[in-house]
């Protein structure tokens, strides 16, 4: 057992330790806490590089490259069955995720040193951030579904803390609650799945040389059994676990929390969207992929849970992209694009296996972090302005941000050949095209690609081109007073000034990420699918076969179409004032309105819940007022009648005996009250007597 494998736990432990220490530190020690967080991230990054190198030179591909280290956690019953085991696993999947998370996280930390410079809760921020990163790393290295779930919930908790970081804003508090509760919905099902899995296989370890729940014996056992509604147990469990993933990585119908999560500080959004939280869901599906893909021998592969994954992913992709078209908040647009990209990843996992989905996850992590931090820099430069209709023409004010942002945007759109996004998305589309069940996911994916290109062009055009529309209505706009109380620097002066470029500590991470967003494209091209084979997926054909070429051509055409339409609508003659009507409002049958209010999903949820509440309340009121009320009324009338009759009887007969009975009751009460005099010792005495009596009773044959 190699040192790195045995001490893999150090990677998440260090950030968590840093969090603990900076939690102890007094609020003034800003530099201390940031140093702790960044330092721990650096060390974790180096460690995970060691791990990566280890998996490389141990480079058996795929399953045989797994190394894991299990230890008994505690023992709740005698025997080996009662021992609860935890552990961590080091395989290519883990290694890649580790490097990605630590690297992106590190850049985001550095970036947020600049971004949060004015916040007086700096220390708390870094404490939470490193806890967040540590929890995510815990999810990544876990070899036990239980450990994974623990870290998973830690991620949920810290996301709650961070989204609600500016808790003095009611919107932020509400968003935090929403995120927490929405993800809970998924997690409950996830937990059910875990318990079911445990009851089926008796272990929660993924790999435990042969005994793990993802290994052949357990899977075969679960596939053989069938649930009541006919699907295999493995499929049912897979679906339950997938529900957790749906909640965490914002798939339809649980995507509602993700856009609201924008209320947190921008580095948080970057971390949530790029590296940690939403990636956790995709990673979970990839981790339990054997369970998801398990299917009976006779049946086709698509009978497994993967089909659901594919459909959900595809729907999410188009759905969210179409919403993003009509948003005006720069961060919301990115949020919805994240949702749709996550849809792509799920779809990739469903149709193409681990490697395809994970490749898109990795590339997306880089350019999405880039986009968010770019957006953050834009917001920072525009004095906390978030509405893109109040920006414009920033190209000349912040050149570095513009350049890097453009790179990220092109990567997200999948601009052909040089950007990593193109290759990863193309791989997904390719395998979707090859999917044997139906072609609809492929078409949805294509549509999503078009929409992506379109709305990104729109955003960039509105933000960076045209002339600056910021001078009016700064401070009046709703989001303009964003976090004034926590950003000391901007709280004092709200005079509209020219936007400015951000400090170097914020721009350098952008540049590095931009470089990655381009450079990553080399590791996954069809010509040299190193990544795929590293993750242990042996493709039938590699290299540019004819249909690969044709698909690439098709998607390039789609992308160019999207870019072109976007530019034609927004870039050609940029809008002059913020108030101008949206071009898309000319679309037929009020589609734009639908997009703008997100298909009314939120309204739908609230209305349904509220309607139901109100209706049941009315029903109860009705019952109470008429049924019970009526009964009571009737009874009372009956009583009145009876009493009227009985009065004579009463006065003549009862009264004679009544006084005596009263006296009897009084005497009884007196006697009782003597027993019940509130003195402890009397009670104790009675207990003593009772004990004697009881024992004697038991001894003299009362026992049997």
């Amino acid at each position, binding site marked *: 057992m190699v040192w790195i494998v045995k001490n893999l736990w150090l990677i998440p432990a260090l950030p968590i330790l840093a969090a603990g220490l900076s939690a102890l530190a007094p609020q003034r020690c800003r530099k201390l806490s940031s140093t702790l967080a960044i330092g721990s991230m650096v060390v974790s990054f180096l460690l995970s590089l060691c791990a990566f190198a280890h998996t490389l030179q141990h480079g058996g591909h795929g399953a045989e490259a797994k190394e894991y280290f299990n230890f008994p956690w505690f023992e709740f019953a005698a025997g080996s069955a009662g021992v609860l085991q935890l552990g961590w696993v080091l395989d290519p999947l883990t290694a890649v995720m580790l490097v990605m998370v630590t690297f992106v996280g590190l850049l985001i930390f550095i970036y947020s040193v600049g971004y949060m410079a004015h916040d007086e809760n700096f220390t708390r921020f870094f404490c939470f951030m490193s806890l967040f990163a540590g929890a995510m790393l815990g999810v990544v290295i876990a070899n036990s579904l239980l450990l994974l779930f623990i870290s998973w919930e830690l991620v949920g908790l810290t996301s709650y803390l961070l989204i609600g970081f500016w808790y003095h804003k009611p919107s932020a508090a509400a968003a935090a609650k929403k995120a927490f509760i929405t993800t809970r919905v998924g997690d409950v099902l996830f937990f059910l799945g875990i318990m079911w899995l445990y009851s089926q296989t008796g272990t929660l370890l993924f790999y435990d040389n042969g005994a793990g729940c993802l290994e052949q014996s357990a899977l075969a056992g679960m596939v053989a059994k069938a649930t009541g509604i006919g699907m295999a147990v493995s499929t049912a469990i897979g679906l339950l676990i997938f529900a957790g993933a749906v909640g965490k990585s914002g798939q339809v119908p649980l995507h509602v929390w993700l856009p609201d999560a924008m209320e947190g500080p921008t580095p948080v959004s970057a971390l949530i969207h790029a590296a940690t939280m939403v990636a956790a869901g995709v990673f979970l599906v990839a981790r339990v992929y054997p369970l998801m893909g398990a299917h009976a021998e006779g049946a086709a592969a698509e009978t497994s849970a993967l089909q659901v994954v594919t459909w959900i992913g595809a729907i999410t992709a188009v759905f969210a992209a179409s919403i993003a078209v009509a948003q005006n908040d720069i961060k919301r647009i990115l949020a919805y694009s994240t949702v749709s990209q996550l849809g792509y990843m799920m779809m990739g996992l469903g149709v193409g296996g681990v490697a395809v989905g994970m490749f898109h996850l990795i590339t997306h992590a880089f350019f999405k972090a880039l986009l968010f931090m770019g957006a953050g820099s834009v917001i920072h430069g525009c004095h906390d302005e978030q509405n893109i209709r109040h920006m414009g023409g920033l190209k000349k004010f912040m050149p570095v941000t513009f350049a890097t942002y453009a790179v990220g945007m092109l990567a997200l759109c999948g601009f052909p050949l040089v950007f990593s996004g193109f290759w990863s998305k193309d791989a997904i589309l390719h395998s979707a095209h090859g999917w044997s069940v139906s072609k609809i996911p492929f078409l949805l994916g294509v549509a999503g690609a078009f929409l992506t290109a379109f709305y990104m062009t729109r955003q960039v055009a509105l933000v960076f081109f045209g002339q600056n529309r910021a001078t009016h209505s700064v401070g009046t706009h709703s989001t303009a007073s964003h976090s004034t109380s926590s950003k000391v620097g901007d709280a004092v002066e709200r005079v509209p000034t020219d936007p400015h470029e951000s400090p170097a500590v914020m721009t350098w991470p952008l540049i590095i990420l931009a470089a990655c967003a381009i450079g990553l494209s080399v590791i996954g091209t069809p010509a040299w699918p190193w990544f795929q084979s590293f993750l242990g997926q042996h493709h039938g054909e590699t290299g540019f076969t004819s249909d690969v070429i044709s698909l690439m051509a098709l998607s390039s055409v789609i992308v160019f179409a999207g870019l072109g339409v976007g530019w034609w609508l927004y870039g050609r003659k940029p809008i002059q004032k913020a108030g101008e009507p949206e071009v898309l409002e000319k679309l037929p049958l009020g589609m734009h309105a639908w997009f703008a209010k997100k298909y009314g999903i939120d309204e739908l949820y609230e209305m349904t819940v509220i309607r139901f509440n109100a209706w049941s309340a009315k029903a109860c009121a009705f019952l109470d007022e008429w049924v019970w009320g009526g009964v009571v009324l009737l009874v009372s009338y009956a009583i009145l009648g009876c009493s009227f009759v009985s009065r004579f009887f009463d006065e003549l007969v009862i009264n004679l005996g009544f006084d005596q009975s009263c006296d009897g009751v009084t005497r009884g009460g007196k006697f009782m009250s003597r027993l019940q005099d509130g003195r402890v010792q009397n009670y*104790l005495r009675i207990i003593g007597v009772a004990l004697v009596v009881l024992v004697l009773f038991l001894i003299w044959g009362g026992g049997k």
Partner: protein
Amino acid sequence: MTPLVGYLLLSAMLFAIGLAGALTRRNAIIVLIGIELMLNAANLNFIAFWRFSEHPEALTGIMFVIFSIGVAAAEAAVGLALIIAIYRHYKTSNVDEMDSLKG
């Protein structure tokens, strides 16, 4: 070695003494002391039965006593705190006068 009966009688005696004190004394603290005595008598029983059992290696009696000592400590702390609170409220620690439920 003293026979089991000796220990049982000793603990019964202690139990009775504790009970008598808890029943007859006025002061709440002494009542609590009596209860502590009764607890200890029970502990003595546990230990004695453990020592005289067929399977002493099971350690059950010892464990019982360890846990009951812990519980007794908690009980003493809370009980005395209650007595002090009552004293602060009624200016008395006499159980005969603490017979009303409402403060």
